[in-house]
């Protein structure tokens, strides 16, 4: 484990050095990353130029949901965002090079082409979160305040395990990287809006099947003092660490099964 983390760190440092060789290009793509993700929030602002509430939630409340999921997703994307390149490596056979190195394959794949420009997304998420915390009308308690960093960390871990599980899926599907996007990017978009606007079955699905609801919905309902549309008990808000640990475990298992089944390309 320590070896894998060290290898991850070294590969990351190498990619950071290589992107820093072209500073102008780095600045431009980081800004582009920032702008691209900011458009989602611009769309929400445009919506709120016509309405005062969406699904019964005010703009600061939606900004809170948006900021927490975007930051959590941004962190996972920063650390694990290269997993979707795995399908390409399986197809062209370059995964073999990673297998012969004496370093955990997962660490190598995750650090492959590490892109520091993804900080653009994290920055944007944090800015919206700061705006939300500034404008929210909530009676803050120690428990509520502690929820916010917990959401970012556990949410990041939940998204990271979706990335790993998606990577494991690529061993079988090979060129289905987009299926992964619908759970990662799609999940992120979903969680930017309040659960009250979605069909109950969809909310059940992201609570119990792909447990994305624990990234921010469940703890946010507690922070914002909102009713859960599914009527689940209040202690669900405290579950994210448990769910995150479970997700990471399952994703690690899926990764092992995927890697074991890997057969190199041939003609």
């Amino acid at each position, binding site marked *: 484990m320590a070896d894998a983390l060290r290898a991850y760190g070294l590969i990351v440092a190498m990619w950071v050095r290589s992107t820093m060789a072209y500073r102008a290009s780095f600045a431009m793509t980081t800004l582009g990353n920032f702008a691209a993700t900011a458009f989602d929030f611009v769309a929400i602002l445009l919506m709120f130029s016509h309405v005062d509430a969406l699904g019964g939630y005010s703009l600061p409340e939606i900004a809170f949901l948006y900021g927490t999921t975007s930051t959590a997703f941004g962190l996972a994307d920063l650390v694990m965002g290269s997993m979707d390149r795995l399908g390409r490596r399986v197809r062209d056979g370059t995964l073999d090079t990673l297998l012969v190195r004496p370093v955990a394959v997962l660490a190598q794949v995750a650090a492959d082409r590490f892109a520091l420009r993804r900080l653009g997304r994290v920055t944007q998420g944090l800015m919206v979160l700061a705006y939300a915390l500034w404008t929210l009308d909530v009676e803050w308690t120690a428990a509520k305040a502690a929820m916010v960093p917990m959401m970012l960390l556990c949410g990041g871990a939940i998204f990271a395990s979706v990335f790993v599980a998606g990577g494991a899926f690529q061993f079988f599907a090979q060129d289905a990287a*987009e299926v992964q996007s619908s759970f990662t990017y799609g999940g992120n978009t979903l969680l930017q809006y309040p659960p009250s606007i979605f069909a109950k079955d969809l909310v059940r699905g992201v609570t119990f099947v792909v447990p994305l609801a624990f990234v921010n919905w469940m703890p946010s309902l507690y922070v914002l003092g909102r009713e859960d549309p599914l009527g689940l008990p209040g202690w669900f808000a405290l579950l994210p660490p448990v769910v995150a640990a479970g997700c990471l475990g399952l994703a690690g298992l899926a990764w092992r099964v995927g890697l074991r089944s890997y057969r190199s390309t041939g003609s």
Partner: protein
Amino acid sequence: MRLYAVVAAGGFRRYATYRVATAAGVFTNTVFGFILAYTYIALWDERPQLGGYDQSEALTYVWLGQALLMACAMMGGGFEDELIERIRTGDIAIDLYRPADLQLWWLAGDLGRAAFHLLGRGIVPMVLGALAFDLALPASPWIWAAFLLSVALGVVVSFAVRFLVSLSAFWLMDGAGVMQMCWLAGLFFSGMLLPLSLFPGLLGEVARALPWSSLLQVPADVFLGKHTGWGLLQVYAFQGGWALALLAAGRMLQSVATRRVVVQGG
């Protein structure tokens, strides 16, 4: 002419080869369609008739966006990476010696790509959307035909923009930055985020006048029957005008750029 038809067919077949990737894309478009549809329902529940659409028209707009996303390349995708790479490496010199027009060659290939994406990634999400929600599908076959013509014009406008941007690689060598600006503009001004009629004041007017509105907003309004008779001819003239102007600009830039090409040889 026959040559370009073959190139277009090649473009179609090239994308048709990746069946699993297409299925994965359909899945993604459908997931995003559902998420957006629910947010639009929440929005139109608050404000019925927002932007001149009723709720089922707004939902139709969502699914049209998912169906046309790849065909009209609103977030990029298609030939531009390849063309930029050929310019950067100098392979473009070989293309220029071919007995085919550079711009028409890439246009033909892109039309083939768009045709495949319209069929492969457009129809299934639209059908699933129509099953799950109450969509405003046009009854008259003429509107469907008018819609297809508008989509075709939108694809040409999209191509012309991306071709222009790719040519910038003759000067910049690295096209990643401009390409990103290009797809950001496409995402924002095509109406993919929200219908352009919901954009406030001057921003909305500017957005509707820019070429990117040809990619989604105009075809969607044709589909929803917002343009008929003379109005329909007007929007065709709008799309066609942008297509011609941008293609002409691309042609001019191309002739300036090709004079810069230095063929190294031994």
